[in-house]
């Protein structure tokens, strides 16, 4: 097309190249996150100074430096228990996803499933799942199974709901387009509805990771012989507050790592996310 506009448009076609150097990436990360970092460091500093000046005893509130020391000193034992917890979290999460996503697809495609399973699921949200822990112990005994089951239960709901919402969000014109191209039912799902629902599905997965950690820890509280939740219970019983805080940090790190892992995969998969697009345009 012989339009002068075309030339103008082409100049905008330079995509930001991926920053190759690790140093550059770290710099960029700090540039983006400096406010979060600064406020985090600020809180830690105030905490440290307060505990030292007010001479707060360590069994009430240990100073951050002391917690860090405990995290390092107790690391052999805590790392060992971290693996148990991590294992439960990941397995529970994967099972939750492996059941939740197909179930959501069933709900979206079957009026019957929507009226029965989905309605039941929504109603079942009134039950605090944490309160099921004693029951699950009774059924599955000690060991890892009850913890994985609780974790799965915790993950399950946000995954199902967000997948259903995502799959149902396909605009009607897109479905009309699929039909007028003669797309089969499977193609309509796989090439239109599923990719269109992915942002919402990932949102569900991200909520699920946080809940997965909660589920595993609760399971360990109630019937642990291993895992960070179990150790924390024991330490708390002996008023080893510093250790309790150290474990809390381990749990937080675990949660953050998992959340960021999903976010990373999400960014890789969904390059068309409007929010990302918006942010990229601000650079």
């Amino acid at each position, binding site marked *: 097309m012989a339009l002068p506009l075309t030339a103008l*448009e082409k100049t905008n076609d330079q995509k930001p190249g991926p920053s190759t150097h690790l140093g550059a990436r770290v710099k960029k990360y700090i540039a983006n996150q400096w406010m979060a970092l600064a406020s985090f460091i600020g809180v830690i500093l105030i905490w440290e100074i307060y505990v030292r000046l007010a001479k707060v005893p360590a069994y009430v509130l240990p100073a951050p430096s002391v917690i860090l020391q405990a995290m390092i000193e107790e690391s052999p034992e805590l790392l060992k228990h971290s693996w148990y917890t991590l294992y439960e979290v990941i397995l529970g999460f994967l099972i939750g996803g492996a059941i939740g996503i197909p179930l959501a697809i069933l709900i979206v495609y079957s009026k019957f499933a929507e009226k029965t399973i989905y309605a039941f699921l929504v109603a079942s949200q009134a039950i605090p799942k944490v309160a099921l822990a004693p029951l699950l112990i009774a059924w599955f005994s000690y060991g890892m199974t009850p913890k994985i089951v609780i974790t799965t239960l915790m993950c399950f709901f946000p995954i199902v709901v967000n997948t259903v919402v995502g799959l149902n969000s396909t605009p009607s014109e897109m479905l009309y*387009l699929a039909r*007028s191209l003669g797309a089969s039912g499977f193609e309509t799902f796989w090439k239109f509805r599923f990719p*269109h629902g992915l942002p919402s599905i990932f949102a569900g997965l991200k909520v699920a990771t946080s809940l997965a950690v909660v589920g595993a820890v609760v399971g360990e509280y109630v019937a642990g012989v291993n895992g960070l939740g179990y150790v924390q219970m024991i330490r708390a019983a002996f008023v080893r507050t510093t250790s309790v805080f150290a474990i809390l940090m381990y749990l937080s790190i675990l949660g953050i790592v998992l959340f960021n892992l999903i976010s990373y995969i999400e960014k890789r998969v969904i390059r068309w996310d409007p929010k990302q697009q918006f942010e990229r345009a601000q650079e």
Partner: protein
Amino acid sequence: MINSKNDEMNRAATGHSEKRGQTVSVEGVSKVYQTAGGPLKAIERTSFKIEPGEFVSVLGPSGCGKTTFLMVISGLIPCTEGYVMIGDRKVEKPYTDLGFVFQRDILMEWRTVLSNVMLPVEIKKLKPVEKYQERAHELLEMAGLSGFENSLPCELSGGMRQRVSICRALVSDPPILLMDEPFGALDALTREQMNDDLLKIWSKSHSMVLFITHNISEAVYLSDKIIVMSKRPGRILETLDLSDLPRPRNMTTKEFPAFNRHINKIRHIFVNQGILSGGEEETGYVDKLS
């Protein structure tokens, strides 16, 4: 099935000269939507025929049922009364041997521009893919989008997105093209250019075009026939024959007396219907008040 695929391949491969497509006849079609506020009549007993190779525009006020009309013709939604025939087949399910440009550009955000354009080829499993790929590149170039083949739709402007969806409708070289206000989102300059490009493609492909627009002069410039519709429920007020505007159409077409005559005629129809006010009245508002 196999035959129709071969047909499509041949059409893309050899630009042959006879008019393509089949007669589309709309017979006494009405459409009533069941809405929350009760039944809503969008189209009222409408009949007309479009011959192969014709370029027909539909003009009408907003909400009069133009989009509904295209949907019914393409079999995407059923009509309440009457029927639509394409060739000797009654349209009862989505008719797939056509290109549809929707009013809102619906692009797959997760696919690149090129892969969006290739979507019909992929779903209709047209072969050979390379041939269509070539055509996709040609179309994108004509639409001023070369260099953007590998961009994602979210990196395009509104007008560029609509141009991508036009390329997508054209890639399989369908014998029937349904276009729902395709240029509504474009600026006046690009719009004029796209009009000429569309005419160029149409005259080469010999396909039938059913084109919806709000723009009277665009309709007159492009069409063989114009169907003027009333307010909702949409009825045909008049069908204008524009065969006195010679083809090929170009800059000089707009200087023809017939060009302005047709525009004024359509304006008058709308004024009589109370859709256009026809400008200031001779005894102005202020006078009446005082």
